[in-house]
């Protein structure tokens, strides 16, 4: 159901469909990719970045919006909070109720620790819930953790911390097994073989899925398990500052009730930051596929407490955000659409790239097609390219779309677009924070004792670009690692006197550096009031 102005281009796409299905587009060479990224990828736009003036990463480059939120005032007046009578007192405090936080809480509980989850919205309000395409694990006979390692290391521009990536790929099959034993329903054939596909940049078909509700199926199962274990979940409560003890180790957090604005104190022997990503910061003005709460809170909390960031200057723009209709502008169109055979096609009906290049290369290629090459389709929100979904039915047979990507069919169906018969319009959308807090393979930050991190708030697992299906994997693998480590470490922790001196010190650094700012952070939620587009 596209209006008149799209019809000419649509006719070209339809006319070329048979030919385009048969076409095997060449993959780009390493040099072509390097040149393309340098010219078109948003991470390479120098004037969108700023150098940090204070903190552990002083002198490093980060997106302007992140610099502003990292070098901002605290929500807490350090001398006004009484740390002597904490409202909560636990072994393990998990900040964030997504897939990483829930996995961590389950493992810490399994280790016998007294664990509590505090989360800004509800448990399960997280990117995990929204992950559509799948989760990688090298569990097929033609595959191995070593091949998985090479795919991810190359896809991330050879920048991943190898000791983290090693854990990711070697623990992956066990992670799938763990989820399966919890009752997650992976797509399987009748003999139990996993139905797996490619993702951009994979050299083996190792993408496991649960239709295109992969993350939702994982998240709701983890949530159910947290509730079955009766782990306390304090919801609608955000952590707004970490508390350290007098020896500089993490010792809890100052909490804010999002509704009543009451300030609470949680004392903890270990703290796990599992706060997710930052799409709602709308870096460079991009729309986002992210969750409402994705405002980089964990990076702010960690940074003020002295934890180091790694690769905070690299973001992932998912190549296929919905570009039309405007009601779903920026929403994720899963990479699985391309895994199942749909190709990217320009305004003239031409396939302009291999559909399964890595995400950064695909996004840059679409931006090139829509800018200098002038081959974009004009929409009210800007230019876009076609993703020719009807190819999937021709390749996989009628009914493939309904069976394998029902959420996509529903999302567009609500606006009168039948993706089985009509292609869809896409443009890159801000999707993932590649960087984050720097950790060791046991999940602890490299320079704040007893402070652990898991999930999207970690930096270094993927290097400077992440492959599809490796994030859903990392939240499980590193969530479990953080939970196990914290659950073990807490047994020997003797907390010293609690303090917020680091907050006072950070405020002083801001004024000493001459930074003049009204920004208060963490941001907690974006402000969309009285704005038409969000």
């Amino acid at each position, binding site marked *: 159901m596209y209006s008149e102005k799209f019809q000419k281009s649509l006719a070209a796409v339809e006319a070329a469909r048979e030919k385009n299905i048969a076409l095997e587009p060449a*993959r780009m060479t*390493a040099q072509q990719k390097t040149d393309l990224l340098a010219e078109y990828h948003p991470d390479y736009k120098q004037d969108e970045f700023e150098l940090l003036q204070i903190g552990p990463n002083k002198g490093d480059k980060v997106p302007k919006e992140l610099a502003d939120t990292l070098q901002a005032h605290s929500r807490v007046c350090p001398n006004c909070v009484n740390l002597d009578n904490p409202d909560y007192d636990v072994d393990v405090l998990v900040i964030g109720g997504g897939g990483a936080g829930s996995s961590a809480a389950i493992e810490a509980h399994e280790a016998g620790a007294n664990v509590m989850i505090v989360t800004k*919205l*509800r448990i*399960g*309000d997280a990117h995990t*819930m*929204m992950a559509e395409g799948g989760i990688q*694990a090298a*569990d*097929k*006979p*033609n595959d*191995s953790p*070593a091949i998985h*390692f*090479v795919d991810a290391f*190359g896809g991330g521009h050879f920048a991943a911390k190898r*000791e983290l990536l090693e854990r990711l790929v*070697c623990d992956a*099959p066990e992670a799938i*097994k763990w989820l399966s034993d*919890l*009752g*997650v*329903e*992976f797509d*399987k054939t*009748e*003999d*139990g*073989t*996993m139905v797996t596909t490619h993702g951009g940049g994979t*050299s083996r078909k190792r993408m496991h899925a649960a239709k295109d*509700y992969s993350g*939702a*199926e994982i998240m*709701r*199962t983890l949530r*159910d398990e947290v*509730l*079955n274990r009766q782990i306390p979940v304090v919801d*609608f409560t955000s952590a707004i500052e970490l508390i350290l003890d007098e020896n500089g180790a993490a010792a809890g957090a100052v909490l804010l009730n*999002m*509704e009543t604005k009451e300030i609470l104190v949680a004392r903890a022997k270990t703290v796990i930051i599992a706060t997710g990503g930052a799409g709602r910061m709308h870096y460079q003005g991009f729309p986002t*596929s992210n*969750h*409402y709460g994705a405002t980089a809170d964990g990076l702010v909390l960690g940074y003020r407490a002295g934890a180091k960031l790694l690769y905070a200057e690299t973001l992932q723009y998912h190549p296929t955000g919905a570009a039309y209709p405007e*009601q*779903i502008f920026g929403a994720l169109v899963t990479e699985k659409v391309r895994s199942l055979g749909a190709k990217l096609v320009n305004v003239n009906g031409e396939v302009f790239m291999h559909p399964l290049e890595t995400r950064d290369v695909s996004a840059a290629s679409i931006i090139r097609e829509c800018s200098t090459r002038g081959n974009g389709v004009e929409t009210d929100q800007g230019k876009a390219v076609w993703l020719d979904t009807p190819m999937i039915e021709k390749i996989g047979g009628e009914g493939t779309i309904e069976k394998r990507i029902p*959420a996509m069919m*529903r*999302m567009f169906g609500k606006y009168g677009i039948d993706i089985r018969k009509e292609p869809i319009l896409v443009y890159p959308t801000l999707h993932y924070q590649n960087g984050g807090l720097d950790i060791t393979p046991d999940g602890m930050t490299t320079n704040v004792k007893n402070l652990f991190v898991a999930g999207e708030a970690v930096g270094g697992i993927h290097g400077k670009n992440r492959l599809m299906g490796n994030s859903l994997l990392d939240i499980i693998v590193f969530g479990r690692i953080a939970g196990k480590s914290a659950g073990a470490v807490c047994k020997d922790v003797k907390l010293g006197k609690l303090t917020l001196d680091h907050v006072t010190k950070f405020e002083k650094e801001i004024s000493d550096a001459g930074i003049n700012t009204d920004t208060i952070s963490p941001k907690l*939620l974006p*402000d969309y*009031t*009285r*704005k*038409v587009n*969000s």
Partner: protein
Amino acid sequence: MSNMVNIFLFGKKYEVPDNLTIMNAMEYAGYQLVRGCGCRNGFCGACATIYRIKGDRELKSCLACQTKVEDNMYIATLPFFPLVKQVYDMNKVTASEAVMMQLYPEIYACIGCNACTKACTQELNVMQYIAYAQRGDFEKCAEESFDCVMCGVCSSRCPAGISHPQVAMLARRINGKYLAPNCEHLDNRVQEIKDGTFKELIEALMQKPIDEMKELYNNRDIEK
């Protein structure tokens, strides 16, 4: 390009552009959402909403992030609904009809009114999946309920007090854990990793200079 329409948020009138979703319209009107807003993409079930178009008898339900406003729409959000979630040990439940009888006996009080199905924001056949649960057919219950976002609107309309999403959650976990065929290649791989089968290969990669890693990556075989 858009026309303005009148909507009524909790009974109060606001004029908003007609191309907005209910969620965006609330923000346009000035609401800073805390409750009733999650993924904004139709997956999390945070923004369950009920509405009625003026003059229409029928009460409708939807997700606020997935539904466009209409003129004379009376809107109330349902950001929380007290579902009953029973606590159980997944290692002790079995794939038998008795599990449902024990944990969610109210499903047998279903009067067949089909209000749940009519209310479903995902257009699922809710009453049918409850019927499968009653019979202990967990596989069919799991399949039929798979797209559930657990928004709870079905339960808000149920005269028998059934917490449909929680019943389906249990069925899916039983199906995933006990009924789905076991995956042999997964078990084998987990064992191989435990046995250290890939240890040397991985250790070699840990040491390799970047240039050699590039060589490996750029020349790797890609499965068709």
